């Protein structure tokens, strides 16, 4: 099935309580599949087409504030509109999952794939000092697997989590093993897992207030410090990445998502050419596997960061290796997906002297 369809199936199977979204290419199959599968008749999952991405993310804010597992999805221009709600969710510490099936920009841009929302995804995206957990799937299987993983992380840390995909993975068809069925939580389970949820004050507790507002600067600073401490823990515990043929490699190609699939092929071609290349694929883009990448790069000759953008993750790679070895970037823009041959050529041209 398509990557987008896998998201929809996985959402139903992993006990999602509600999906709120607005159609946009190239991810409309997510809401279309959900509408066709009618999960409200089976698991009781709510599916609603909102009037805009702004409304969708605020429905997510409401649902998340009420302790539910809620999901939305969009593509780049729509995700830009959602930044208000995501910032509020980060500020109010709400768990929610959103999927960005990226397309090229800026502006209305193109409906073709891109990875040009890396900065937006990994730097917070909206106003204020915050981060969202970012998972980058590179296969249809991972589209399916990351839905539950994103929810688990979101609830563990009371923080929004994003699946940063792109038009390639969203539209691509692959065989997929759907995740096991997990029932939706009962009210009792929600009360236990989310004692902070705003779902009606029982006489045994004070009112639960979901808000990101605090006018006293001393209190607001403490809130921010609390968030920063949480982000430190996430950086400590939740870094995920994959490596291929890095042990004996002289050159490391760093790519995420769909670009990593192309990077994998580029490593093969380079090795056929006698160049010892390896692939490093960050799975979590935030937290970025900085320490792990720096460790892996010791003794290597150079790093080529191949992304479908003008050079975004390359900044995190440079920060990670901190000048220890040359770091170059190769990318295609505007909806063009690079060929493995181009990447090998770029490797030779910029690093292999």
């Amino acid at each position, binding site marked *: 099935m398509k990557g987008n369809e896998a998201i929809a199936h996985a959402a139903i199977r992993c006990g999602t309580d509600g999906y709120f979204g607005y159609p946009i290419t190239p991810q409309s199959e997510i809401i279309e599949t959900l509408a066709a599968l009618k999960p409200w008749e089976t698991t009781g999952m709510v599916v609603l087409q909102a009037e805009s991405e702004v409304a969708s993310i605020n429905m997510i804010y*409401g649902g998340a504030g009420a302790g539910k597992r809620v999901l939305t999805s969009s593509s780049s221009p729509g995700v830009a509109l959602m930044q*208000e709600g995501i910032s509020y969710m980060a500020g109010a510490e709400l768990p929610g999952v959103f999927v960005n099936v990226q397309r090229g920009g800026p502006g209305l841009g193109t409906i073709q794939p891109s990875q040009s929302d890396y900065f937006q995804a990994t730097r917070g995206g909206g106003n204020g000092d915050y981060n969202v957990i970012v998972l980058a799937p590179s296969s249809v299987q991972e589209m399916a697997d990351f839905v539950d993983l994103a929810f688990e992380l979101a609830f563990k840390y009371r923080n929004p989590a994003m699946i940063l995909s792109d038009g390639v993975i969203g539209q691509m068809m692959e065989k997929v093993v759907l995740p096991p069925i997990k029932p939706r939580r009962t009210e009792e389970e929600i009360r236990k897992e989310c004692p902070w949820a705003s779902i*009606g004050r029982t*006489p045994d507790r004070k009112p639960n207030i979901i808000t990101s507002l605090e006018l006293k600067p001393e209190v607001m600073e403490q809130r921010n410090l609390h968030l920063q401490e949480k982000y430190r823990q996430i950086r400590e515990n939740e870094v995920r990445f994959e490596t291929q043929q890095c042990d004996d490699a002289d050159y490391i190609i760093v790519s995420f998502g769909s670009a990593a699939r192309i990077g994998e092929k580029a490593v093969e071609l380079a090795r056929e050419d006698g160049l010892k290349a390896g692939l490093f694929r960050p799975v979590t883009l935030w937290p970025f596997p900085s320490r792990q990448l720096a460790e892996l790069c010791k003794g290597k000759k150079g790093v080529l960061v191949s992304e479908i953008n003008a050079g975004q993750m390359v900044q995190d790679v440079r920060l990670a290796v901190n000048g220890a070895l040359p770091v170059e970037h190769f990318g295609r823009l505007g909806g063009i997906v690079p060929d493995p041959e181009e990447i090998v050529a770029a490797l030779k041209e910029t690093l292999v002297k």
Partner: protein
Amino acid sequence: MANNIISPENLVYKKPALMNDTTMHYCPGCSHGVVHKLVAEVIEEMGMSDKAVGVCPVGCAVFAYRYLDIDWQEAPHGRAPAVATGIKRLWPDRLVFTYQGDGDLACIGTAETIHALNRGENIPIIFINNAIYGMTGGQMAPTTLIGQKTATCPYGRDPELHGYNLNITELASHLKGTCFVTRQSVDSVASINKAKRAIRKAFEASMQGKGSSLVEIVSTCNSGWKLTPVKANEWMRENMFPEYEKGDLKDTTGL
């Protein structure tokens, strides 16, 4: 004399129990306080304190959650109807309502308001219309009257410069999803009683799944209008009521 009257068996009126002792940040004489009391009384009388979830706006009522001891969510500016939609769809047995001002509901949140009402979400919306932005210091609102002076139309609202005031309650009454659309005020005992009955009807209708309700309360903002609370009530009766006529605009609840 007074001493033997003041005893529990003679009690006829006190602040609702759901309203806590926190001093409200509203200006002296502000209509918000009266409406807060009515919302609290209705929730208490319906026995829904443990099922009520309020969604408050950005604007003067942003701190409503400090005063009524129920669960709340504070929504981004204008998005309360979308936030409430999320909660109500996922917790249909809860009493989920929004409490919004004119800038929040009829300007930045017009899309969310119209669409939530039109989908017939089982949500009552309490709409405080005082024709001005109170929290930010008295700027022009979508409901500011033609000729009315504010900080951003200091020479009076001029349709050529600023466009017309928006009668969103009238608009809401034409939407298929609404079951109850009414305009009330809280400037006298009689009007307060009527407003309370309207809030009760809207809340009941939402729990019976009859659709969305909009209860507009034509209100004063004496600080923004630069009048005393007493004069503000007079100005409201004289200038607001002719433009925002009180009464039910739509009622298909059968309640």
